[in-house]
């Protein structure tokens, strides 16, 4: 659980995340601001959705989505059927939108020029079982337009990168789920794409592999890549990034850091657990604040329900200084992706997502 007194990006400062509100989108329009500093802010977004809709017959896949992604890692979360996979497929150029435009680095996502900037790792696990992992990745390298020697070199490099170099000669039929994930990841990384679209990339990977994958994703983000990661593994996603795009019913419900999104959820006061050397005095003082909805007290802690977290923390800081109260513990109780998702998606358990 992140400590509110620290930056929510404590473990992710390497990405140069800004702490100002970037954007939160409701009503389907989401402009996801830059997370890489002012230089990148001026650049073209790598991925741009402009009022995009996609229907499957009478069913709407995504509805009037506007989204802008720049370098860094973004988690894509939402319930089953919320439109995550459709959004990824549109971004990968696998489908054409019925309305609106999807562009990658300024090119129509459907075009070959755009696809040179994209690495797509789909969720599916069954593919070309008779081939060896090496053959498959090499074939995908040839698809990217490399001459054989270069395709071979890149194949070997990316297989080493995903720790499959020594197992790549076995047929895919004999691979575990985790090994299949690594091979899929390898084919997505082959051409050093600026935009990586990863659908459930951590699913089925063992803990060590997950840690390695997370490190790899961070390293890629540090190198200025844009990663859009759809995942049901919210805990893993939280370790990776706190920037999320939350989808619901084909729309982008919110985009931004979890803290920013949480701050704007006025209907759901933030619960904060505080321990101090003067709990009784602190509780009385907190109850006088307009932004505090209530305070519960047990033997060691206070649990405060803050209506406006940002103003609350400003007031709390002034309060403890004025009254010489020593805070020994402070944590937010419902600022996780699960909680935010649960609030945003209106009552359905976020763990269903």
């Amino acid at each position, binding site marked *: 659980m992140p400590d509110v007194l620290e930056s929510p990006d404590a473990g992710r400062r390497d990405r140069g995340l800004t702490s100002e509100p970037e954007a939160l989108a409701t009503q389907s329009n989401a402009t996801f601001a830059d997370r890489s500093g002012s230089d990148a802010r001026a650049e073209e977004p790598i991925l741009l959705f402009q009022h995009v809709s996609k229907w*499957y017959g009478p*069913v709407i*896949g995504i509805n009037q989505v506007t989204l802008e992604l720049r370098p860094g890692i973004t988690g894509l979360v939402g319930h*089953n*059927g919320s439109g995550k*996979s459709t959004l990824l*497929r549109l971004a*990968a*150029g*696998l*489908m*054409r939108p019925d309305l609106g435009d999807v562009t990658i680095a300024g090119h129509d996502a459907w075009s*070959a*020029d755009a*696809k*040179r900037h*994209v690495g*797509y790792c*789909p969720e*599916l696990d*069954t*593919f*070309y079982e*008779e*081939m060896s992992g090496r*053959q498959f990745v090499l*074939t*995908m390298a*040839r*698809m*990217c*337009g*490399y*001459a054989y020697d*270069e395709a071979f070199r890149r194949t070997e*490099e990316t297989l*080493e*990168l*995903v*720790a499959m170099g020594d197992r790549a000669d076995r047929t895919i039929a004999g691979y575990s789920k985790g090994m299949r994930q690594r091979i899929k990841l390898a*084919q997505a990384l082959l*051409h*050093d794409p600026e935009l990586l679209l990863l659908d459930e990339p951590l699913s089925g990977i063992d803990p060590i592999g997950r840690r*390695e*994958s997370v*490190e*790899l994703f*961070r*390293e*890629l983000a540090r*190198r200025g890549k844009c990663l859009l990661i759809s995942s049901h593994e919210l805990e893993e996603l939280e370790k990776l990034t706190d920037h999320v795009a939350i989808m619901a019913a084909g729309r982008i419900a919110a985009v931004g850091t979890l803290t920013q999104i949480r701050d704007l959820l006025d209907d759901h006061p933030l619960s904060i657990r505080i321990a101090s050397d003067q709990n009784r005095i602190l509780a009385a003082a907190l109850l006088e604040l307009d932004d505090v909805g209530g305070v519960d007290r047990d033997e060691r802690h206070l649990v405060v329900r803050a209506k406006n977290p940002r103003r609350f923390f400003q007031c709390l800081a002034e309060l403890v200084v004025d009254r010489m109260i020593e805070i020994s513990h402070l944590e937010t109780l419902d600022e996780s992706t699960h909680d935010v998702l649960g609030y945003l998606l209106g009552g359905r358990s976020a763990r269903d997502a």
Partner: protein
Amino acid sequence: MASLLHYRPWQGEFHSPWWSIWPIARVSLGMFLSRRMFWGLYACGLLLFLMFFFGAYLLAWAESQLGVAAQQFGRDPSRMLRGIRQALRILNGSQDTFQYFFAYQGGIIVVTLSLAGSLLVGDDFTNKSHAFYLAKPISRWHYILGKCAAVAVIVQLMTTLPALVLYGQHAFDDWSYLTNVNYFYENDTGKGPAGIPLLLAVLGYGLLLSVFLSVLLVATAMWMRRTMPLILVWMSLFFFARVLANILVDGLKYDARWRLIDLWNNVTMLGQGMLAYAHEDINPKPQPEFWEAAAVLIGVTTICLMYLNHRTQGVEIVD
């Protein structure tokens, strides 16, 4: 893992997406060739080829033996030779040889492709693995052409390649077979052209089979995906349609144009046209005009291409 991240910037020129057709085809061919059943079918085709290949030597041996025997018994061998040549005319390297060879091999090809369609194309859609291809910098037409190329290679391996070997065998036996267009008329050994026109006709027949069958297979396999439904579709197209056409034209004496519903008849008719058969020599009689058969094949191919275009507009999968 992250420490291993060391891309070297790519300095070279990217190949055109057209280069991706062969890797796509090779993946499909690799899967095809890894199945024993298809080697079995290929072996059946090879047996037919061997029949034609060694049959030519059988014909030559029979002619020589007949000549000797006729002299011993004091009979005119020419009449008997004509009878033998007429009976074994499909082995003499003439238009008949290639017509029968393509027709027999075509039967095996149709069986093979109806069994292999799911593996070559349908599984991509069943498993959604075509997403890997379509996410790369190629267009959907490159993907379709890659799949068609795989089918075409199989067709060529089973028809054109052995037919060229047969052609080479006859040319090797007698060089004038290759150089003299009127070889058969001058030697009174058969009909039709020899030489380069026959070679071009063989290549054209193979090309016709490759193009039509590959487009048809890719379209029907994208539609049906699974093996059994695909077999039923191909049985309907190549067997039941043929039976129906025969009933309508030969049995009920309907117009010859009803034979156009028999796609295989249209293919073989055009093939025989390339081999310089006269319209009235084509069996079964009566037949529609050449241009009508060509129009039907072009129409079916166009419909298949339109379907392929529509089907690969996107990975239209609702989870």
